């Protein structure tokens, strides 16, 4: 257990109800400083609601929150100078130029004028906006907008940064650049809480929490989470994968079978000895297939934790 001062966020029994819907349901969370902490979950799993409660924008129905040693929501106003928040939707002003946007944010963060001008120039350069300072923010591409929004959220060098699905509408290259920036910030001592529904992004986090329908279903470092599934993942290579899949879903203990090209990725439950049963089933059905153990991935972690196939992860909430 790290020392108290090392904890950036501590939440216990965090719950938020909207009418009859429990959007967030009893989430316990501890985020240590200087980490990139990931929130992984499908749309509607309570990621945004949790983040909004943690930065004091929503009042929890119940539960306790302490962020940077401040009690939330009571001391939310005090917290605001120490955090940066990047909303899911682009929330800078489309009809202001890049420089005007950043200058405005510097001013509302109480930065003295001279210092603000300097900081804005610095950020424009650091975030590759040289020569575009007088362009309207509304004319930027998706990836550029997110970069600008990130620059805006760190203008006052916050200790803690909340990023709500910052890369959900961004091309892969921009996503890579964006994550480079996040690690630079983390190296400089910023704690970052970032939500995502991309598995590859989740793998890059120091620690992550998996949310499903408002509940926290797993948390730990990516290695811990995948390590817990050791021996429960198989790869099946078959000439006719769809036929093989029909056999697989009948086998007791098989949680999911996802086709990847010509092979199938199989996740089994904790009962063990799953491989033998799968091979037996193929033999009984007269299907020729090669079954081999494979290293578990975060996708498997997600499926195991939520009991739902991973391709639903990116689907809209029902």
């Amino acid at each position: 257990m790290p020392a108290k001062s090392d904890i950036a966020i501590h939440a216990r029994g965090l719950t938020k109800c909207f009418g009859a819907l429990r959007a967030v349901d009893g989430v316990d969370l501890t985020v240590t400083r200087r980490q990139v902490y990931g929130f992984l979950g499908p749309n509607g799993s309570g990621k945004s609601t949790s983040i909004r409660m943690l930065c004091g924008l929503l009042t929890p129905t119940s539960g306790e929150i302490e962020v940077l040693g401040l009690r939330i929501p009571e001391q939310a106003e005090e917290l605001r100078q120490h955090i940066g928040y990047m909303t899911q939707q682009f929330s800078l002003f489309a009809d202001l130029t890049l420089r005007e946007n950043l200058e405005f944010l510097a001013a509302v963060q109480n930065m003295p004028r001279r210092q603000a001008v300097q900081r804005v120039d610095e950020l424009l350069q650091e975030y590759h906006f040289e020569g575009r300072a007088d362009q309207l923010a509304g004319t930027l591409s998706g990836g550029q907008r997110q970069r600008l929004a990130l620059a805006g959220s760190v203008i006052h060098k916050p200790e803690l940064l909340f990023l709500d699905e910052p890369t959900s509408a961004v091309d892969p290259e921009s996503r890579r650049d964006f994550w480079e920036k996040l690690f630079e910030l983390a190296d400089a001592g910023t704690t970052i809480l970032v939500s995502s529904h991309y598995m590859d992004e989740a793998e890059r986090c120091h620690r992550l929490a998996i949310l499903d329908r408002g509940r926290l279903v797993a948390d730990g470092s990516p290695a811990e989470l995948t390590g817990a599934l050791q021996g429960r993942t198989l790869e099946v290579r078959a000439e006719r994968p769809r036929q093989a899949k029909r056999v697989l879903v009948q086998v007791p203990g098989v949680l999911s079978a996802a086709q990847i090209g010509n092979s199938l990725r199989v996740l089994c439950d904790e009962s063990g000895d799953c491989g033998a049963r799968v091979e037996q089933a193929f033999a009984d059905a007269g299907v020729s297939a090669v079954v081999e153990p494979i290293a578990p991935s975060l996708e498997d972690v997600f499926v195991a934790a939520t009991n739902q196939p991973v391709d639903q992860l990116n689907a809209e909430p029902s």
Partner: protein
Amino acid sequence: MNWRRLWAVVIKELRQLRRDHITLAMIVGIPVMQLMLFGYAINLNLRHLPAAIADQALTSGSRQLVMDMLATGVIEPVASARSPQQLMEMLRRGEISVGVVIPQDFEQRLATGEEAVQVLVDGSDTVVQSAAKQLAQVPLTYMPAEPRQSSVPLPPARISVVSFYNPQRVSAINIVPGLIGIILTMTMVMFTSVAIVRERERGNMELLIATPVSSAELMLGKVLPYGIIGLIQTSLILLLGMLLFEVPIRGSVWDVYWSAILLIFANLSMGLLISTRAQSQFQAMQMTFFFFLPSILLSGFMFPFDGMPAPAQWLAEILPLTHFLRLIRGIMLRGADFGELWREWLALLVFIVVMMTLAIARFRKRLD
């Protein structure tokens, strides 16, 4: 209150406004358009009603009466007729709004005090009806008495006609001061209520409330630029009113501006209150009209305040426009000074304080 943050919000708002060409056009367009509409088109001082006169008497007295009626400018002959039947047909076809029948025995009827002239009116338009009824009343009430008084009947009639036709003299001079109030009420409430709701719709608000900027800074910063716009509009209407309609400012110009500033902030605080309630820009517009309609109908701009039933008057006393109209008419037309009208500006001040407090209290730096 942090001045740096407040100023940042003001500058941001002005920069956005500079790029919003539609709003900029409305700032100037609404006052100019309304002024033209009310000043020229909506002339409650009815003139040039299409008319036809069937003079069956054809005496010098009847001709003199016709000339006199035409001289008022209320009616304008567009056709000639010989009989009442012809006039009725023309009325039905909508060719004329007023028909005048002078019977053959006109002089005789005058002498005996009988109804000497008949005025036929197109009653489908109530405004025309009431105007023409007044026209009809003049010769009927005046003429019977006249032969006994004088042998030269008509010159005095012309004088009495003028004062009779327009007892209230509703004209541009009367309308322009009120119009300042109408335009400020419409644009100020609308601009502020929409400006804040728009930020909420576009997601800017979520970013803003996660920063240290306070509710009061945010609200005042949004309101101040629109206050300046309101003063520009006021100046525009005053200037056009003076140039086009020769509207006088009998009191002090400063008093006019003080009144305008009070009304502007009363309406801005109303707009802010609406914005804390409205979920979408459309709702903000709806609520703006919910406030604007009673303002225009009950404030005394359209109908005389004293003629309204008591409950309507109580309601009108709550509306800032009612008090502003009393202020501005007093200052501009009667030459009253600000001090004499203390009740009115005090009422406006109270309205501002109450609405602004409610708005800031209702505005939560929260999403729920």
